[in-house]
């Protein structure tokens, strides 16, 4: 066994333990903020796995998109939604927990039998490594053009939706006028949240 092999095996074990541990933490911890931070750790370990597989570009993209964008947005969501609500303990909560656990264990068993039963044909080709970037680009603009473009349209839709939700400019004028009249002298000039409704066109 050479030095490189040893390093590879050790990093694989470390990454796998880190990923599984963090994923369990995301699910099992009560504090939602901890869960969100541990999710970042899961993404980082996945990116480490990509590096072990010689896919450095995918690894960097994983960090940029999942840790830098998705996870930060989740954290923003958690920290900005400041819902002060007393925690009411639910009676017989263990039933739902037990059901969830049973479903999860069942899914896990199903997937692992599938993994073990499938005759995997492991490719013996050498990973392309550093030229992967060029190959990914070529695929995006030839045989994977439609999914690529559809994904960007989806993102555009989400963007426009977010802008509309945030600006709340689509309230009809007469509704706004009614609102003006109801307003007391000391209210700040802000559009109230409750009035967003899709019922009036």
């Amino acid at each position, binding site marked *: 066994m050479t030095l490189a092999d040893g390093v590879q095996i050790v990093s694989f074990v470390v990454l796998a333990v880190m990923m599984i541990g963090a994923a369990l933490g995301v699910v099992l911890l009560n504090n939602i903020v901890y869960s969100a931070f541990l999710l970042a750790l899961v993404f980082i370990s996945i990116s480490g796995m990509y590096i072990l597989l010689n896919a450095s570009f995918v690894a960097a993209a994983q*960090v*940029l998109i999942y*840790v*830098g*964008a998705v996870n930060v947005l989740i*954290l923003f969501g958690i920290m900005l939604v400041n819902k002060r609500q007393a925690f009411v303990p639910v009676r017989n909560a263990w039933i739902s927990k037990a059901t969830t656990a049973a479903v999860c264990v069942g899914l896990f068993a199903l997937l692992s039998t599938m993994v073990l039963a499938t005759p995997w044909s492991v490719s013996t080709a050498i990973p392309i490594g550093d030229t992967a970037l060029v190959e990914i680009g070529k695929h995006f603009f030839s045989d994977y053009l439609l999914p690529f473009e559809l994904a960007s349209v989806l993102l555009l839709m989400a963007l426009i939706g977010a802008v509309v939700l945030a600006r709340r400019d689509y309230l009809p004028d007469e509704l706004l006028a009614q609102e003006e009249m109801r307003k007391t002298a000391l209210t700040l000039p802000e559009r109230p949240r409750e009035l967003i409704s899709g019922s009036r066109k």
Partner: protein
Amino acid sequence: MSPGIDLQASFVQALTDLGLPTGAAKAIWIPLPMVLMVAAVTVLALVATWMERKISAAAQQRIGPEYMGPFGMMVPAADVLKLLFKENVSPAKTDPWLFALAPLLVFIPIFLSYLIVPFGQRIVITDLSVGVFLWISLSSIAPIGLLMAGYSSNNKYSLLGGLRAAAQSISYEIPLALSVLAIAMMSNSLSTIDIVEQQSGYGILSWNVWRQPVGFIIFWIAALAEAERLPFDLPEAEEELVAGYQTEYGAVKFMMLYAGSYANLVLSALMVAVLYLGGWESPIPVGMLADLLGVSETTPWLQLITGSLGIIMTLFKAYLMLFLAVLLRWTVPRVRIDQLLDLGWKFLLPISLVNLLLTAGLKLAFPFAFGG
């Protein structure tokens, strides 16, 4: 191109000559560049703090630090000593785990990003094919650390500062990445070595700053915002937020946040030097001078001069940008948060998109000048 100085090969060769097996020699080599880099980055950040003090003083017609060492150069070292020996306090109602982890999360990605900063043809830790992209993706981890610091401090100023910092670095990442993309398009590569090589040849005339003037300005503004420098230091605006997400921090943890912010600033300046100012290339190419004098490129002393000149040039350009940043700090007032986001999303983003399109068009029209 001549291979230049290859430190790794010579080091491994020297150890194998002493009778060690090659594997062991390589294993001894592995930690060396990392340790060297951490030490070098710390020194660079300390020099940046000293420069900040001195230039700020000059801008305000003061003298600045003077008595500690020549020109007060030992002040940063004294700062570090003081912070190391301070008691490590964490306030009563903080979240102890997150509070301790947050400075590390800010600090480590920044130091990791130095992996790709080249100081010469071979004087770089790793020449990755994803190069600059690695820097962009690593710098996107920082907001998580800042949010963590803000949240765990259990203090409204800290939380506001953390949220502001995250919002700011998310919005300025996009123009930054788009202007880097224009450079990558011209160099046909993301590797920092290739980007500098593509700017070599005609000395100062072939630097990217002449081909990408708009991209240069966008990049510098966005980099200042990413490093939370004035005029974009809203996350730690003293008058409003005490010190933002750093409010509750002290001793070693504060030192990490502080060193991280200065290391980030130096890193941004180094990236400007690499992407736009020709990296290790001197204004008059050394190779051209050597040709004029009739010295062969493989002469050992010439390689030594080229190597050290490369390091000096990179650092000189980077600290020139740093000087500009400090001057800007005392020239421009702080922007408001809405102005900051307006500038990022409504001005820099469209302009950098147009810049990218123009670069693509110019690349098709003039392939000889824009790296066809």
